[in-house]
């Protein structure tokens, strides 16, 4: 949920108009959206998601004085987030193994119709390679175009398309009947 305080509205406006903004404002206003993206990248691991967001904003903080020169600090933050996620997963890849079994379902507090399906989806995302997961999150959550996704991930557009298609196929295989359930919703 976006913050709708006067502070938040003013900061968002300033982000859009490229005027200098305070880092704290930026972190408060954009932190929520970044966390949601991180939550999907982390496949529902909220601790990892918070870690990713703090690292992303930490890197932003470290060079905040130069950020007004960026065309799009929000997009920059999202790109940093994805890069942090992929580099962290790469570092930890030796100790991570995809599981054949879906992770145990977690309780959800959102008032959605089918939290179980949501948890199943997150568990299925967890089985994807980090870069494939990032492609899906950018394409279907961030609504980025193929070209924008390719730029953020430093891939070719062709690679993004093929990874996206392959990842969705993989999800369909993992989710089985749940995927059909998603399609029927």
């Amino acid at each position, binding site marked *: *949920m976006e*913050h709708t305080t006067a502070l938040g509205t003013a900061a968002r406006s300033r982000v859009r108009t*490229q005027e*200098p903004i305070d*880092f*704290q404002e930026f*972190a*408060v206003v954009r*932190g*929520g959206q970044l*966390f*949601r*993206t991180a*939550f*999907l990248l982390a496949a*529902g691991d*909220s601790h990892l*998601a*918070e870690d990713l*967001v*703090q*690292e*992303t*904003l*930490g*890197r*932003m*903080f*470290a*060079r*905040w*004085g130069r950020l*007004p*020169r960026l065309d799009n600090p929000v997009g920059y933050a999202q790109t940093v987030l994805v890069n942090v996620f992929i580099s962290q997963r790469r570092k930890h890849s030796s100790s991570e193994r995809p599981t054949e079994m879906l992770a145990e379902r977690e309780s*959800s*507090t*959102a008032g*959605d119709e089918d*939290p179980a*399906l*949501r948890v199943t*989806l*997150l568990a299925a995302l967890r089985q994807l390679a980090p870069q494939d997961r990032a492609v*899906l*999150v950018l394409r*279907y*959550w961030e*609504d980025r175009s193929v070209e924008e996704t390719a730029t953020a991930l430093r891939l070719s557009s062709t690679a993004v398309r093929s990874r996206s*298609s392959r990842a*969705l*196929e993989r*999800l*369909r295989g993992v989710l089985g009947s749940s*995927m059909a359930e*998603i*399609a*029927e*919703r």
Partner: protein
Amino acid sequence: MSSDIEAAFAQELRAAAESAVQPAPGDIYAGAVVRGRRIRRTAIVKRTLASVAALGVVAAVGVPLLTGGHGPTVVGAAAAPTVKIKTTPTADDTKKAAAAQAGTAWMPAYMEQTLKSLLPAGSDTSIKDDEGDNGRIQASVPTLINIKGTSGGRAQTGLKTSTGTSAVVLITSMDNYQVHCPTAAEAPHETCTKTSVNGGTLIVDLGFKNSLNGQGATIWDVYWYGPSGQSVHLDEVTDAAHAATQAAGQALTAQQMTAIVTSPAWDRIGQSLPAQCKFGVMAGTVNSPTVIPGTVGLVCATSRSAAIPGNGEAGISIAG
């Protein structure tokens, strides 16, 4: 996979994202600041110590500055500076760089002389040889100065006492962003004060590379934000390995650093620097109303491709 399934997948993904229980914004912010400070300080240590080491030279500054008098005060001075243009790939770029150089050519020498003049009394700024007759390492040429066409100038030098070696970087700029003192939770081993001085703001931040546990190189930052928008930043880094004790390794005291950054002598540079230009600077027409004061025909670039190469840096580098 059909677009219907893709749309349904996107919808379910949104639902999953919205289901996330968010941490408090304050927690995210606080964690980010701690990490950001660590990143920034690591960068400062690398920048200062590594680049001074790359010069292969270290000046000596008098022990009396800090410890009350154990020997002569010596500061190595820059040799006759040489000017080199960093990037001149095309004739057009050469012209633009030359314009930038002409507008800021006086700054390196001015910065160097000003910094020397502001060092504590008794400092020796004479040039030393790298090796003396007895084989001992002497203090030598310490100064590296860069002038950025867009945001300011930088003077860097090494200062040495009998108890340690410090790297000192002085930056003058017209950036409008001000740093903030960390909270006690963010940096429990750091002492930071913010005061109003002469219509401006003075921030004295004394800490370490790792301000959470007080470990690593000692980093002292002093910032001066003048009333006209100018800023002067002096940071002094002493590698803990080179200092008998961390504080004793610092060549300059906080008071001496404060005296340096608040000197009106820096105003001349501040007044001659362009306000922040989004894309850097480029050569303009002499009669252009937007010509940046103190420069020869420099204006804010209209695009990145039009800017002088080097992300707006004027490409003037003077190394002693």
